């Protein structure tokens, strides 16, 4: 067996999966807590990627550093979107369905606004650490993906801690598990939903920048991201932050393994097929929803 190839594939796969998990965590939260399937989630992540690219080109700001203002910015943006678009819809009979159509519309708009602003050309983030590596034994670690991985771990960790340790985070969980009781003890549902949504979109910004460290991107790239997002979230169990992270790693491992052992053309069908199998056996994902 070719160990080097295997390990190298796994490294790549796990990094990829965890960055998708970072993008997916917020998606999972909005879905779990608010019953809103936010189709434009990845599109907001893509905005962050474009802005980070712009900041890097113009002012030389590191993409990860640019998150310092990007996340709050996206947070505010999301609050507006929530207040004026999502909130009216949450009164519909079938929130999941109507929110899906609504946010599908938002995704189309966001994509085409990006197309108008930035044009259709693909972008690639190049920083001082792009293509730099550190070598551990026979294994190569590229700085940029590793940075994405670290960011993913940190991001998921922060969200996890927020939910577990802060009062607001606990309120988010409480509102999801028992919205009536949460209200009875002083939780303002609208406010909590707005915070959740803002936080989710903010983390999507981090996820988008993470993916931009790994891949090139163009205004339509969010469609592809969204598909992986769905996979990570569903396998991880909707609303389960750590589950999402684990699912990301799992999908990464599957991809890595199949890249190492299979003809490449069967990697994608196999990944999707295996996930189908996972879902068929465990209908609610590998990990139960548990926030």
């Amino acid at each position, binding site marked *: 067996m070719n160990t080097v190839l295997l390990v190298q594939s796994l490294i790549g796969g796990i990094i990829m999966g965890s960055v998708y998990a970072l993008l997916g965590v917020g998606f999972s939260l909005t879905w779990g807590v608010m019953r809103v399937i936010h189709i434009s989630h990845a599109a907001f992540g893509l905005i962050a990627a474009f802005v980070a690219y712009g900041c890097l080109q113009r002012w030389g700001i590191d993409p990860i550093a640019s998150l310092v203002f990007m996340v709050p910015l996206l947070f505010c943006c999301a609050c507006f979107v929530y207040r004026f678009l999502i909130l009216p819809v949450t009164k519909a009979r079938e929130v999941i369905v109507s929110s899906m159509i609504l946010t599908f519309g938002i995704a189309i708009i966001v994509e085409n606004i990006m197309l108008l602003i930035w044009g259709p050309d693909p972008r690639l983030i190049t920083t001082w650490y792009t293509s730099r590596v550190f070598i551990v034994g026979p294994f190569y670690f590229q700085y940029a993906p590793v940075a994405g991985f670290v960011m993913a771990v940190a991001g998921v960790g922060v969200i996890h801690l927020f939910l577990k340790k802060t009062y607001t985070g*606990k309120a988010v*969980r*409480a509102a999801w598990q028992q919205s009536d*009781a*949460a209200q009875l*003890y002083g*939780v303002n549902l609208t406010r909590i939903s707005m915070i959740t949504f803002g936080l989710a979109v903010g983390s999507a910004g981090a996820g988008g920048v993470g993916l931009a460290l790994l891949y090139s991107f163009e205004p339509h790239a969010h469609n592809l991201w969204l598909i992986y997002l769905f996979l990570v979230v569903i396998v991880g169990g909707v609303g389960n932050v750590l589950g999402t992270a684990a699912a990301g790693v799992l999908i990464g491992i599957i991809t890595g393994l199949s890249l190492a052992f299979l003809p490449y053309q069967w990697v994608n069908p196999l990944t999707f097929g295996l996930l189908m199998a996972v879902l068929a056996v465990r209908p609610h994902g590998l990990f139960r929803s548990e926030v």
Partner: protein
Amino acid sequence: MLAVERLVVKYDELTALRGVSLTVESGALVAMIGSNGAGKTTLLNAVSGLIPTREGTISWEGSLITGLTPDAVCRLGIVQAPEGRKLFAKMTVEENLQMGAYSPGPRARVAESMKRVLELFPRLAERRRQTAESLSGGEQQMLALGRALMATPGLLMLDEPSLGLAPIMAAQIFEIIGDLNRAGTTILLVSQEVLQTLSIARDGYLLENGEITLAGPSERLLADQRVKKSYLGL
């Protein structure tokens, strides 16, 4: 003092409350009895702001609170321990209690309240780190009560606190409720356990089909023929 006047609540076209009036004096323990579907839970939810009212008013300490959102009502100190307990199932006992003190006022005193509640319910102290769903029925009810106490209620509304509990457990709960009241908490107690409820309450209301059909001191309710027949099986 809570005062409800001629309150009407409708679900779509179904009328649940048809002009209910009641008062809960400060420091009192008022019982609200009635059969299933009489509208007891609806009344509490209307007071808490969970469901909209059609007509009538609700006031608290002299000011109108009709139409406030549940969290605003809670901030005024009106706290409901809802029917079926509605605990945060996947959160720990401790977190459930913390959530009880979510409003800014109680939150400032959270450590103090926590100590008090855990002293009151030593079982909860033992199980602080367990999830709420892993507790037994009685323990869950204690947690529900404890969570409500964490909110340092000015008025505590308890909806069927003994539902589904073994008789011994239920008796214990009623005892605690009585103690709480004696310690100064104003309580509106809703229950189908008519005898036990009325035995600890000073005043009582009988709610039937969305209307108050009988009101007065507990002894008078207990002595009433209708109550005896329909609710005590005598």
